[in-house]
């Protein structure tokens, strides 16, 4: 068996609507171990559609031929662009690759020079067309329509399309390596090529620029002028993306902790990683894609985890638009063919719009998230959101046993299969009976974390709706109370000092998974049990030096390379940190955070989705996943800094949980409502600076102070022992 290629840390280039995937050697190639085998993810993604597979440039001069990567003398990111320099046959070539937003796509340009003599350089650009939403990970279409039109090449696959535009125009086109005179072609296409001959002399550099953009075919016509403008000045289009990124970063908090520089660097890396996932792919959708390379669509569950961090970073507008985007697809009635039930929020959304349902947890995150948005922004929750919340809770109530309050998870995929079984000529499926966050594991019928999400959703919804004549809020609080009682009664696992992972047919499922830690974070457990759960999770069958496993290594079902039955997930490590801080074990919480920070450092800014359970090696892992950066950021703000905010009331609570060995820490430019706060901590005092339209009340464990705008105050802190 040939070993998969080693894990690499690819330079990820994204705009809000496109991504260039490349390995840094010179072409848009990116072979990654994927579900155990090598798969090339290189190419261009735009509008959540994989436009191309690998996109390569070949060079020819006289009788000599080579590939662009074979001539690379240096390569790397420079000012948000991928820049590579090449030397071959007396030619000096500088390549620039950048995603743009003026049109959803990527610009690729070459600037060729020679120090002496005139020579012709033939460049052949070849790419594999895909044209299918990224969410369909395993399929490459084979049949395409090609058309040359208005100095562009159009490629269409049903409702998806791309446009290839270059300056100069190609002198030759190829389909499947055979010459094509242009016009229209319909049939099997494995590769498309375009050839250019550049005359290079010492006094005049030769330039080639290519824009490859697309997504939905119907949008291409309206973008023709914008695409032409990008081609006329590719660097300007690329710079606009870089400028927007800088502006965003400048608006987010800065974090300084001289006693743990690795944590400070990790904050910067995680924030940058989150920004790379920002997505406005078209069709009026806003959100963050779940990850790269194979989860580059807006997933409702992942979005919910990410938006908490987005709120702490102060981007309320993006959070609100993201929530609005998802709510547009809240199922208004049952849609079994898409796995949807009335009130349910979608699992995935992409331009088309294309959307699918069928998870047991996505819907549950949003009532609390909406309340969080209101608390951060200091604005009331829009009335449309309130109506959506009612539908969400009705969805949950339909899956709930009224006597216990337990919400049922599982069976979603089977429902889709049953709805479509008699309809298709070919049938296919994955026998996943359950769709919790570990959606390849069977955790039916009442997974513990689902119950925690449900409990939180009920309470948040009651708070959002308020006590009215309908009595809904009272009913929801009552269900939440029953659920909390059931959790305490039925899930406690005395032999392990832990919580059972689920209940099925009235029997507990005795598996040690990190999901139980969510009950600790929610404050649902008595103090002694909460401490025991955190301590049990820290044992080495669940916690490794590189993070927390999805299943105990002692479990008979443990497999170190099984996605949700043994692999280490960074989000689970963040849960462990959160729970440790929640019980006051700050030293342990910080160790978990530093474990994550170490991974970011080792991965050169990437944040892998998951690792093998038996060694710190990414396996079957997106190299950047929102799950791996956002919860880390949230724990940093909420637990390490001990921040909670109620901007509407003008209150910020700060209860830092820094180690006793630390001498200082600072957080600047933290947005609270319409204002900005700066925090400068030392063991003796917290200095607070406030700029905002109205006074801010700051609470610490010992003090309360109200600051007018533009004022600073020192709040004394009681020494910790």
């Amino acid at each position, binding site marked *: 068996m040939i070993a998969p290629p080693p894990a690499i840390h690819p330079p990820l280039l994204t705009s809000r609507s496109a991504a260039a995937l490349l390995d840094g050697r010179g072409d848009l190639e990116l072979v990654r171990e994927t579900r155990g*085998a090598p798969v090339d993810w290189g190419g261009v993604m735009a509008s959540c559609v994989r436009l191309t597979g690998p996109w390569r440039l070949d060079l020819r001069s006289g009788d000599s031929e080579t590939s662009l990567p074979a001539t690379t003398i240096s390569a790397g990111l420079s000012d948000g662009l991928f820049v590579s320099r090449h030397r071959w046959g007396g030619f000096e070539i500088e390549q620039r690759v950048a995603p743009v937003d003026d049109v959803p796509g990527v610009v690729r340009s070459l600037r060729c020079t020679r120090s002496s003599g005139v020579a012709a350089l033939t460049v052949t650009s070849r790419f594999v067309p895909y044209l299918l939403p990224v969410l369909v990970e395993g399929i*490459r279409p084979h049949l395409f329509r090609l058309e040359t039109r208005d100095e562009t090449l159009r490629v269409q696959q049903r*409702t998806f399309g791309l446009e290839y535009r270059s300056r100069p125009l190609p002198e030759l086109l190829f389909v499947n390596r055979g010459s094509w005179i242009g016009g229209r072609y319909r049939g099997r296409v494995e590769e498309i090529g375009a050839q250019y001959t550049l005359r290079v002399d010492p006094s005049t550099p030769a330039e080639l620029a290519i824009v490859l953009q697309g997504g939905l075919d119907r949008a291409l016509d309206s973008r023709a002028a914008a695409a032409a403008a990008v081609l006329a000045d590719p660097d300007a289009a690329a710079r606009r993306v870089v400028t927007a990124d800088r502006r965003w970063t400048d608006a987010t908090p800065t974090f300084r902790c001289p006693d743990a520089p690795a944590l400070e660097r990790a904050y910067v890396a995680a924030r940058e990683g989150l920004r790379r996932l920002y997505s406005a792919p078209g069709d009026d959708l806003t959100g963050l894609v779940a990850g790269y390379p194979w989860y580059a669509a807006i997933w409702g569950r992942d979005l919910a985890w990410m938006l908490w961090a987005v709120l702490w970073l102060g981007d309320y507008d993006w959070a609100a638009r993201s929530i609005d985007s998802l709510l547009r697809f809240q199922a208004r009635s049952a849609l079994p063919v898409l796995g949807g039930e009335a009130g349910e929020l979608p699992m995935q959304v992409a331009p088309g*719009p294309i959307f699918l349902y069928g998870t047991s947890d996505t819907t549950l995150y949003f009532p609390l998230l909406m309340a969080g948005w209101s608390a951060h922004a200091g604005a009331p929750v829009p009335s449309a959101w309130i109506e959506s919340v009612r539908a969400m809770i009705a969805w949950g109530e339909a899956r709930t046993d009224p006597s216990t309050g337990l919400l049922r998870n599982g069976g979603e995929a089977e429902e889709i299969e049953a709805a479509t079984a008699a*309809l298709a000529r070919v049938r296919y499926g994955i026998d*996943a009976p359950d769709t919790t966050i570990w959606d*390849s594991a069977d955790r039916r019928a009442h997974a513990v974390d689902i119950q925690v999400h449900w409990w939180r959703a009920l309470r948040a919804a009651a708070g959002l709706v308020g006590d009215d004549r309908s009595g809904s809020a009272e009913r929801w609080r009552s269900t939440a109370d029953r659920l909390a009682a059931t959790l305490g009664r039925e899930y406690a696992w005395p032999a392990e000092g832990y919580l059972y992972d689920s209940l099925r047919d009235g029997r507990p499922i005795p598996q040690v998974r990190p999901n139980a830690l969510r009950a600790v974070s929610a404050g649902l457990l008595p103090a002694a049990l909460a401490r025991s759960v955190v301590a049990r999770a820290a044992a080495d069958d669940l916690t490794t030096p590189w993070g927390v496993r999805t299943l105990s290594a002692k479990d008979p079902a443990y497999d170190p390379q099984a996605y949700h039955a043994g692999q280490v997930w960074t989000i689970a490590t963040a849960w462990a940190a959160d729970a440790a801080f929640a019980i006051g074990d700050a030293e342990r919480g910080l160790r978990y955070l530093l474990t994550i920070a170490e991974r970011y450092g080792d991965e050169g800014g990437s944040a892998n989705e998951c690792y093998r359970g038996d060694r710190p090696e990414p396996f079957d892992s997106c190299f950047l996943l929102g799950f791996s950066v956002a919860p880390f950021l949230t724990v940093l703000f909420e637990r390490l800094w001990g921040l909670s905010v109620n901007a509407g009331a003008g209150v910020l609570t700060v209860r830092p949980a820094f180690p006793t060995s630390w001498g200082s820490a600072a957080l600047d430019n933290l947005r609270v409502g319409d204002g900005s706060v700066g925090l400068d901590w030392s063991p003796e005092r917290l200095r607070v600076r406030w700029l905002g339209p109205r006074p801010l009340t700051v609470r610490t464990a010992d003090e309360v102070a109200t600051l007018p705008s533009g004022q600073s105050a020192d709040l004394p802190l009681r020494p910790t022992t």
Partner: protein
Amino acid sequence: MSSRHAGALFALLRQGLTLGVDYGTHSLEALLAVAETVEENVYAIDSFRRTGEGIEFALDNPPLRVGAFGAIRLAVDGTFVPPERVRWRAGEGREWRTADSVGPATPLWWAPGDRTEFAVLGTFGVDGRPSTVRLELRSTAIPPLVWFEFTETLEEKAPPP
């Protein structure tokens, strides 16, 4: 058409109309495009044929999931074929392997767009009715079974020229 099939079609029609009304016809069109692409780009149309030794067919893509598969099972009309009688190769001219040679340490690697030809030894579809072929794959990375089925009438393979 069976009543079950008709019922399913009406249910689909209702859901399609709901989608069109609630989310727009573009959405319906795009969802259909994805479904059709998946349906038409896995099983290679007209590749299901009778050979001298049994049957053959080809897939133009992995069925949904990519990656390494540590176990393969194949059933024809509900009966699983012994693994040593199920052969596959990664396209014409490549080496044949049998399903019993596939294991977690010697998996089948399957990437998007990879064409894979299957040859199954035995006697199938003798009554002229359509046969159902079911392929079951076990990923080495994600445990749940991946399965794929198609129902086709066997074509007699044209003799070599």
